[in-house]
């Protein structure tokens, strides 16, 4: 018991003297040097958080856009092998009256073919100017609330509730606007010689037979989400009239709710509907699996880069502390000579290293969450398939701070240990 108390007392004295030395050394050390070390720590932290955060952000940006532009937090679609969502009306009623749901957009979607050139027969060996795509009937007001649909309008004008016979076409369906126009991909057909104001013939392909109707292109819509750029949009009431059967049944319903509560809500909807009635997924579940694979790969890549950054950071801290300790070798010897315990001196170097690590991390956190994340949210990286954002969560950053501090602690401890265990007299005399 006595021994334990003595050890505790000694430890507390060593900590106290170590802390005292740390404070004084930091107070009186060169501001330039301190600033430089902290700057290096900030860079090390940013390297850990931002590089991987941006890599993952390229994919996360596409997930976010998918959610914001198309699916909402929950997307309900026809079950596999079914043409529509069973009991659509009842489901819509349930969704519209659910307290956690802020918006719902039910959509009719049907496979269609669009003929770009109405009168001319193709010449010999010329492909017909037509593409196959999904045509979507939307309620303008609901879609605007859910996805801000009008922002996708790249050229021309948006649909109006009081006008019929107009269509919006995704940019990736028209040669003039498609991102794939300059590559010759076998089997990829794009509408040629078609622009705003052109008349196109839409053939709906449904179980009830094919129905043809001419539309005038009113606008071109474009988004990095394929579900927008490769589809055609008309007023839902107009499309509904054209559908020969099951007019009251929808093929898609996008639901806006709180992101965190989406999984629980999916369960509720499944309980209400029965899982065989429709495919009910959170937006994350609806993400194509190849994108998930890309996310995983980018995550691994980000972690690999972070690991290198961590090694670089630890070596930097080690060098900084080692140089700091070796230039003060004589004074470390003097301290030992006048009876300061080696452990107290070691603590002072560990505290210094932690000071640099904590200060660098705190500034790094401020820069990340106060500057970089809002900046990239406002000015995303323009990546071909997404608007890249910076993915940095408090918990993820917290883990990286902890890792950085542990590395700092070790990198501060080792050089101090190396110098302190040298012979006291040799240190004092510089031998």
């Amino acid at each position, binding site marked *: 018991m006595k021994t334990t108390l003595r050890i505790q007392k000694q430890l507390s004295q060593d900590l106290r003297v170590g802390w005292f030395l740390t404070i004084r050394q930091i107070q009186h050390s060169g501001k330039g040097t301190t600033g430089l070390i902290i700057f290096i720590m900030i860079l090390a932290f940013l390297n850990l958080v931002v590089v991987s955060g941006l890599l993952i952000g390229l994919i996360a940006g596409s997930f976010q856009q998918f959610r914001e532009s198309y699916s909402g937090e929950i997307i309900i679609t026809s079950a596999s092998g079914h043409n529509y969502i069973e009991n659509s009306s009842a489901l819509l009623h349930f969704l519209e009256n659910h307290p956690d749901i802020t918006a719902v957009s039910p959509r009719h979607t049907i496979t269609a073919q669009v003929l770009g050139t109405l009168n001319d027969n193709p010449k010999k060996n010329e492909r017909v100017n037509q593409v196959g795509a999904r045509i979507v009937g939307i309620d303008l007001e609901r879609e605007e609330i859910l996805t801000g649909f009008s922002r996708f309008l790249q050229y021309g004008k948006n649909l109006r509730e009081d006008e019929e016979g107009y269509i919006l076409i995704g940019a990736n369906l028209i040669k003039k606007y498609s991102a794939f126009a300059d590559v010759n991909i076998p089997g990829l057909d794009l509408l040629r010689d078609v622009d705003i104001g052109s008349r196109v013939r839409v053939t709906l392909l449904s179980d009830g037979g094919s129905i043809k109707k001419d539309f005038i292109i009113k606008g071109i819509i474009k988004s990095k989400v394929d579900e927008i750029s490769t589809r055609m949009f008309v007023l839902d009431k107009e499309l509904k009239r054209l559908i020969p059967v099951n007019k009251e049944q929808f093929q898609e319903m996008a639901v806006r709710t709180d992101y965190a509560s989406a999984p629980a809500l999916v369960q509720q909807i499944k309980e209400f509907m029965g899982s065989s009635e429709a495919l009910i997924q959170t937006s994350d579940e609806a993400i194509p699996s190849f994108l998930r694979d890309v996310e995983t790969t980018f995550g691994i890549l980000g972690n690999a880069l972070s690991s290198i950054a961590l090694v670089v950071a630890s070596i930097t801290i080690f060098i900084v502390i080692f140089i700091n300790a070796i230039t003060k070798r004589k004074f470390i010897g003097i*301290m030992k000579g006048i009876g300061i315990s080696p452990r107290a001196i070691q603590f002072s170097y560990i505290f210094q290293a932690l000071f640099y690590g904590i200060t660098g991390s705190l500034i790094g956190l401020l820069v990340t969450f106060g500057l970089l994340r809002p900046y990239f949210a406002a000015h995303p990286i323009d990546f071909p398939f997404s608007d890249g954002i910076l993915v940095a969560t408090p918990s993820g950053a917290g883990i990286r701070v902890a890792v950085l501090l542990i590395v700092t602690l070790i990198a501060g401890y080792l050089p101090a240990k190396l110098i302190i265990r040298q012979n006291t007299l040799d240190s004092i005399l510089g031998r």
Partner: protein
Amino acid sequence: MIRAEQLMKTYGTGDLAVTVLKGLTLEIRDGEFVAIIGPSGAGKSTLLYQLSLLDEPTSGEVYLDTIKTSSLTQKEKTAVRLTKLGYVFQDYALLPELSAIDNVVLPILMQGVPYTEAFARATRALERIQMGDKMLNLPSELSGGQQQRVAIARAVAHHPHILFADEPTANLDSMNGRLVMDAFLDLHAQGQTIVMITHEEEYASKAHRVITLKDGDIVSDIVQKPRL
């Protein structure tokens, strides 16, 4: 009391071995002011390092009161240096990032004395050697004499049994040298045991006992009436 028995110190090995202390025996009693003199290479500093536990003899033994110091671990020796010994270095050896008072307070804090009391004791120690007005200055802002006085305050603030001084006036002009010597004499007057290496006869004459070393051995050990 500190006692050295058959103290031998050899540096290097084989043909390159140099024996600096050759089986030296001496005893310094409490309250003595001992000056160790001798030509360069006589082994004065080496003797001081052995007595002050900064170094280990090749053979022989140093007893501090009843403690056989060869049986102490490095950690225990550090603790003994903290509680029982004080050391004044030739080049002052103040810690450059600590102010005068912080330099003095450091060993006191290490003894577990609370902050307030430690600073009060350090303040008194500095005031006693007329350094009260320079307490907050860094060593770089003090003259050599002032730094050495701060070093003395640091060495005695924790009330050591024995104060060792390795040519404390060697780097000082005569005026500052005298101030430092006055500080030693004051301390001795208060009962402090002092062991001082010096080259200067004038300062050696102020000690009560003068030990002369030559070639690693004592050639004379004279108790004298100090010339004040």
